[in-house]
């Protein structure tokens, strides 16, 4: 575990991804300030390099949040987003970096409960695993 403030990046689509985050905020739900939300028009826009660069720039964990599959505003966007995340996860595995640092989530605009849970989970991963390469308890 690390005491240092964890850094979590969340690529959220501007449709149901952000809708669920905004609903959570407007339903009085609080979540850890460690998360940095980066808005994209669709999670299909997310490139593997965005995720990898985020990890290189100091993110301890990264998530991608898109619409539910088959309900993506752009039809197959969140399916593409998930493929990109899977690609990065397998790349991380090859690099000896924990796969769980990067994860794909889907949500709809009615889910006020989900965004805080996602942040919670990714912050826990970030704290538990610590910065990349330095080991969980090395500080």
């Amino acid at each position, binding site marked *: 575990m690390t005491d240092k403030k964890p850094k979590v990046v969340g690529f959220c689509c501007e449709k149901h991804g952000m809708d669920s985050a905004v609903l959570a905020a407007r339903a*009085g739900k609080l979540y850890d300030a460690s998360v940095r939300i980066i808005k994209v028009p669709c999670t299909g826009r997310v490139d593997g390099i965005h995720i990898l660069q985020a990890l290189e720039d100091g993110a301890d964990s990264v998530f991608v949040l898109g619409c539910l599959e088959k*309900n993506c505003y752009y039809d197959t966007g969140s399916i593409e987003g998930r493929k990109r995340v899977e690609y990065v996860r397998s790349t991380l595995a090859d690099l000896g970096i924990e796969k769980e640092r990067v994860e794909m989530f*889907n949500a709809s*605009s*009615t889910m006020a*409960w989900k965004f805080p849970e996602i942040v919670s989970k990714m912050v826990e991963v970030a704290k538990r695993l610590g910065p990349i390469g330095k080991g969980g308890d090395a500080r």
Partner: protein
Amino acid sequence: MANEVLVIGGGPAGLTAAKSLADRGANVVLVERSESLGGMARELTCKGLVECRSCGACFAVDRASEILKEPSVEVLLLSEVTSVKKDEAGYEAKVKVSPRYVTDDCIGCGKCVEVCPVDGKAIFPPKGTGQPRIHWIDRSKCLHFKKKGCTKCAEACPTEAVDFEDRAVNITRKASSVVYATGIDPVDACEVSRLGCGTLKDVVSSVDAERILNEKGRLARPSDGAPPKKVAVIQCVGSRSVKNGVDYCSKFCCKYATKISQLIMDADPEVNLDFYFMDLRTLHEPQDDFKRWAKDKKTVRLIRSMPATVQPGKDGKLVVKASSETDTEVQENEYDMVLLSVGMRPSGATGELPASLGIGTDERGFAKVGDELAAKGIHLAGAVSEPMDIEEAAVRATATASRVKLSKEVSG
């Protein structure tokens, strides 16, 4: 400029009709009785986890947010149409807008609710995922109005959004057409007392199960808050039954319940789930889909039977007694949670207001409007006229919106 269309009801049908009409260029007054838009869909859970299961709940929520930003739609919440008069120009409606006592400075943090001393509270957030996200005070429960002085919520509010000076107003709106979309009331599962709702804690109606899932994302037993491991889902509770007057099929319950079952199994693939049904009426989906899914799951059983009773068993468990498919034997199965899938009755179809508009009802209470009434500009939308799910309510409301005569149409 005279408002052209009055839409009564802010649920999926009313919202869709209002949006479609606004897109056509109409000015719309949307009158909603409760404190927020979304209707029954506010407390329905999204039934997808990774893949959308097409339940339609988000459609209503999205329309609600959108309508509040639509410049040509005037939304009146906590409002009721008290009377409608017809003259040569069209309809004149008197609307009573009840006070909310909370301004739109409200940020939805809920601190007010925490400090409210009333048992059962007097200040509430919008129901479920209702929009806008502004709390409201039920005056009849509020101590401030009973014995003047309680201002706990106002003091706790970080944005000073509580306004005890809010007052009811009576306003008048003119329209050339009226869309009546007052929606449904769920059947009370307690009407079917033999199935334990109201007496056994872990027997919940689908309405409650949806509300819990919508709030928390997972199901928990009311008795101890633990996640259930053995669940029975019972269909047609209170529907297709002459006994309580709901002898029709409510149309959406199989669709919602099969998808909730799938959601439950998504959360915990080891749950044992028994689905009790009479006929599998998964709306607009192949009848085989759910059966194939169940077969694949191995801990899901489809049991074609209407259970006779749900009784308390050992260790706080529930025993469901049902005859087998061929009626030859009686089976008892034990569960730690039972979901009763309830149907619907039409809401607001009877009474002075619909009668004054000329809206009649059939023998079951569903609203009926003939062609002559439509020619006069009175239209129905949504499940107040017959059972339907959210998506069909949206489709029919769009169809209704296409039939409304407008004095001017906007192109583009």
